[in-house]
């Protein structure tokens, strides 16, 4: 039975590219060996049935550097993330964390589809009643399928629905935030 549990999605992420990719050669600029991509993520789906109709429960700015071997890529990610949640006093507040990690990706459909899985360390930037600033935990960023368009030398990326889970304080009862996000990026490669 298919499921959107993280483990199954991880498997799907890795699996998606192979059958598709077998049929199309990568073309420039989709096949850049090195690339750097600023990235903006937000979560338009997250509060759609909550009390607050606000669309931006989570916001993130990131930078991704990737080295590719044909369809496979390995890279580093650095991202600052803000999200709204309920703090230790029961009030809704903004939380912030810095995420730094590694990620792997596979391109398919001639480089026009990208599947990516990342993970690493999450550092809480601001303390709460229950957490201290500087707590270090982990995160997972799962982008099972995104599209890429070449605009000249720049490749625009759109991941229409991704799963991002951060645990900046993994001690005790962990501080966990799950976000379903849209990610937009502009990739500069050579």
């Amino acid at each position: 039975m298919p499921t959107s549990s993280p483990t199954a999605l991880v498997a799907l992420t890795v699996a998606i590219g192979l059958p598709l990719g077998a049929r199309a050669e990568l073309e420039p600029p989709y096949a850049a060996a090195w690339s750097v991509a600023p990235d903006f993520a937000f979560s338009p789906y997250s509060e759609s049935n909550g009390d607050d109709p606000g669309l931006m429960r989570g916001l993130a700015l990131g930078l991704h550097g990737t080295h590719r071997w044909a369809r496979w890529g390995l890279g580093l990610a650095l991202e600052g993330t803000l999200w709204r949640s309920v703090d230790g006093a029961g009030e809704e507040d903004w939380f912030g964390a810095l995420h730094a990690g590694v990620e792997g990706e596979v391109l398919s459909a001639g480089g026009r589809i990208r599947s990516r899985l990342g993970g690493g360390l999450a550092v809480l930037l601001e303390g709460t009643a229950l957490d201290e600033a500087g707590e270090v935990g982990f995160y997972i960023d799962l982008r099972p399928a995104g599209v890429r368009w070449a605009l000249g030398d720049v490749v625009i990326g759109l991941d229409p629905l991704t799963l991002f889970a951060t645990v900046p304080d993994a001690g005790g009862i962990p501080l966990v935030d799950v976000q379903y996000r849209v990610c937009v990026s502009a990739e500069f490669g050579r």
Partner: protein
Amino acid sequence: MRPALAFALTALFGTPAGAYSLQTAVSESCHERITARSLGPLSALVDIDAHIEIPDDPLLRRLLATLQFPGTAEADDATRFVMMSIIVGVRSPDTEGHSTFDLGALRRLHADPAPRGQYAHALRGPDDDGLPGDLAAVDGTLAAIVEEVRLGAELSAGGVIVRKPAYLDHYGRVEVPVVLFAWHVGRAIHALQDAHAHMIWDADVEHVVGVLNYVDAVEGRLGPDDGLAHSNALDDCDRDDVAPMVEAATRRTTALVGAIVQAVQARDDTALRRGLAPCADDATERDACGWLVYNPPCRAALGGDDPAAVEALCCTDANDFCGSPFAGIAREEPVGPYLGCGAAPGGAPAGWPVALGLAALFALARRRGLALAVGLAALAAPRPAAAEPPRLAVAIEGHGAALDDRVDSAILAPAFGYGVRAAWRVGRWRFGLHVDRDHWLSVEYGARVDAGVLDVALFGEALFFDDYVRVGLALGTSTLMFDSDLHDRGETGVFSELRPLGLRFPIHDALWVVLDPLTAAVVMPAIEPDDRLPSLRKVQRRTVLGIEGCFL
């Protein structure tokens, strides 16, 4: 009886009494069961508040119509309303109306470093160290009970009805009307019952010899003076070896309710005072006194500042809590950090188990992912080279959903289902009919699969990249297929599903595997425009996998 009954009372009361956890998919209904067995004075409790007027509230009327209580099949609505209020109050210290799967709420409630937050559960505060800490925790818990009783007594006249939060499967946190007096009684009952699960008593269950510690244990910083960690074994009311404490908790809960009735009804708090004080040596009715008493000789020794007397008379881990038969149980199944990440002094950095876990996850994903990929690749066939693609497509699909990312909600929202789609193609566009059955898992008051909804919709989608990629949107109706807590089977509302990026793999001339890694579906079978009842609405992130045949 409705399957998703608000407080799962039918199931709870139909089983033998157990312990001190709340009823959920992963824990037993100790508090609810003990409370249900302890409410002999219920009728008197209702008589106290003779002025109760059932509010004209559709939510309350719906809940009262669905609740069942043992031995109260013929009970009037006022009695049932008081019972419901007590149960909401009993659950409130543990959840405050949040889901028991809402990690954020659990953190706030159970890892609250304020001593009062811990005393509401009969546990040590973070600064309650050593034997004085035992004493402080017992006194703090007694104070918490007295405070709830006092608040309840002050509010007993006039039928004060307010709204308090409670959690309903599929609806989330809702504000339900409660009789405030009864709600406070429920909270007092909770603390007294927790004292028999979070404290170590002597063999006769007459006095406390040690108090457990949750807040330090769950943070992984339990020191030698912090007491034993909260024990899931001592919390298990179904164990035979904790039966004496469960029975004592039941008797004392009954006595507490009776004393409250007497205090309010007859303006006589004698029974209440007697219950909250140690038993006299010649006391014959042992359940009428000493409901929560710390080891009297030790208390006296601690007050006298006599180290030799303290060592001789007080109970600690070192002397096996004076031979209490419950000490060994209390050492079983100690609570710790959820992810094994603690701040143990002198230990390795807290993040290393996480890093290992992450590495394991990657390794697992790699193995499974590669296996799946190899499978799909083996199935994959060259794209059919038809001059004009087939116009009719029929797909059979399965779907699943697991996580919820709303603020202040349960992290789990499991659902699964299956469906059929038929579409007609015009150029790169396809339009058709979508039908699916979506089953919902209830986890709040026990694990159960509910019949969910039937979704019927029209959809449109566009194909890209040689038909390997699709983007689609479905709009239609969603029909409830079971009687939920607040709505009847057959209620019909709206359904929509955005499939922002799906993938298609050809496996034969006319067959494709279709995969939507994540979709966003809004399933809303019951819409309540005036908000007198909460709407029934779910936002699901589905993963969809299916097989599609293309014809004509």
